[in-house]
């Protein structure tokens, strides 16, 4: 079933891709093959393959039981929030905020998770920013403090 849904999804993607790609034209071109041929070919093939996916009679994908899926989904949201806030909150805070729920998901108790969060935020910041010279965001809250 999930293959079938995925197939439909890919079919829609390829239709959209072909629709958008149709208008790709170079103002001046020296080439016998323009910029749109290759994407159109890729999307067409993808469309054909997605039909194949919908029709194939392979053993269905076994999804994890739904409580596990909920946890995986939760983890994805945490990481997504981390990505969104990475720059704004700065590395230390956002890493700590991300680490605590992740540590909880992976079997740490509250105490361990809090230690992991605070520790990772500070230690990795010092390691990368100070020691290895990789510039990391400090976040809007730290800027006024540092001047």
């Amino acid at each position, binding site marked *: 079933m999930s*293959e079938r849904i*995925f197939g439909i999804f890919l079919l829609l*993607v390829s239709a959209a*891709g072909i629709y958008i*790609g149709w208008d*790709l*034209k*170079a103002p001046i*071109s020296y*080439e*016998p*093959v*323009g*910029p749109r041929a*290759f*994407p159109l070919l*890729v*999307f067409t*093939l*993808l469309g054909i*393959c997605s039909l194949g*996916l919908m029709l*194939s009679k392979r053993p269905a*994908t076994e*999804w*994890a039981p739904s409580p*596990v*899926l909920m946890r*995986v989904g939760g*983890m*994805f949201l945490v*990481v*997504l929030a*981390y*990505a*969104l806030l*990475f*720059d704004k909150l700065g590395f230390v805070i956002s*890493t700590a905020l*991300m*680490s605590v729920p*992740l*540590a909880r*998901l*992976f*079997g*740490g108790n509250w105490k*361990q*998770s809090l230690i992991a*969060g605070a*520790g*990772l935020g500070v230690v*990795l910041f010092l390691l*990368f920013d100070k020691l*290895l*010279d*990789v*510039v*990391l*965001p400090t976040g809007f809250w730290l800027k006024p403090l540092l001047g």
Partner: protein
Amino acid sequence: MEIISHLLDGFAVAGSPTNLMICLIGAFLGTVIGMLPGLGPINGVAILLPIAYAMKLPPESALILLAAVYSGCEFGGRISAILINVPGDAGAVMTTLDGYPMARKGLAGPALSISAVASFSGAIIATLGIVALAPILANWALAFGPAEYFALMVLALSCLGGLVGDSLLKAMVGVLIGLMISCVGIDANSGVYRYTFDLLHLSDGIPFIVVVIGLFAVSELMLMLQSHHGGAQAVEVTGRTMFNMKEFMLARWTILRSSVVGFFVGVLPGAGASIASAMTYSMERRMAGKDHCFGDGDVRGVAAPEAANNASAYGSLIPMLTLGVPGSGTTAVMIGALTLYNITPGPTLFQDQPVIVWGLIASLAISSVLLVLMNIPLVKVFVKFLQIPNWVLVPGVAAVSMVGVYAVHGTTFDLIVGTLLGGFGYLLRVMNFPMAPFILGFVLGDMMEQNLRRALSISNGEVSILFSSPISIGLWVAAIAMLVGPRLAKAFEARRNRLAQA
């Protein structure tokens, strides 16, 4: 003779105290990175790359570091494969088949040591192969024009088609999705923006590191959560740590054969360590006849994939150094490392930057010696890393991955794209889509298209340019052989079996 003097120069570069130290650090880090699930050579190298650059390492040292990490990973992947039945990286998947059963039987020590020796043999044989082959290829490489590059890409993709086998449809979908993502961004030939949806962030396309981190690191962590049940317990290493003579005699030809095969698979662009190890494993299994216990803890089942994945990892440096075409995902990142230093990998590299090329080759030999020395006696030290609890490891890997993306691009946008790709990758992996074709399509797609179009604009539309040189004809023939060969062999075998039964 010239080669020997170049090689000596190379050893002088790689043997300088700083570079030896870098090699040692890289080998150690690589072993740890390779061992930890969720981190593999691609993201290990991707994360270390901006660091090496930020630390202002000279280009040869940076490459030596990355190469040492790369080979370290191939050594490290086997440790977790054998002890916890989780491959530390993709190349070690086959190692679990016999490694874990051996460990369960109390033979963890011999499994670890024979696989270390096999890895070493693969590495050394491949280094010799590079010394012998790369300069010759580099001389040819100037003759590689767009038409030849295009034929080479076709060969790379057909290798995959021939080897993937059963789930051909899924592999094709993977390649196509990879190709689709590679279409995003400015078109190098016409300057037209494609599929950027007027987002300036997409104008240069989706960066390789973002795709890799999303697909391999983020989705890997999600899969870890799915199979997480209170932490995997590592089998303890008890009893003898060395293999005995009998085991060695049983595995020696396997090791040699697999090293050579692995090397040649690695040289083909795109066909990486995971394909090499799968190929040699099934080859050895077939060759063993009836007298084996493959799947149940056969030393040859540990030796073959390990020799092959190291050899192919090194072999994949050849297309990178001579043609500027990545032989594997990791070498694609290393090409990024070279371009950071304004060095274009490709035919002129051997002429223009002999220090870098030969220093790198010499460092491969040095790091494999260091690795085998480290891995046999110190294996118990490395095992300690497997005891890091997941509640520290997983957030740590997540944070380090984000740093890897942020260090190169510095935008929230890339972090978000990486995470979304991670979620997408998780779904694909749960539905059993192989990831190697995906990455390959992404890496080769752009090169394939641009070179085809370049070839056709050079010839003013004459398709014959694609088959006009001996090199391209050879590549086309090889591509067809790779597509048809395995199927013919299968059909042949099936027929023989039918005849035998009749």
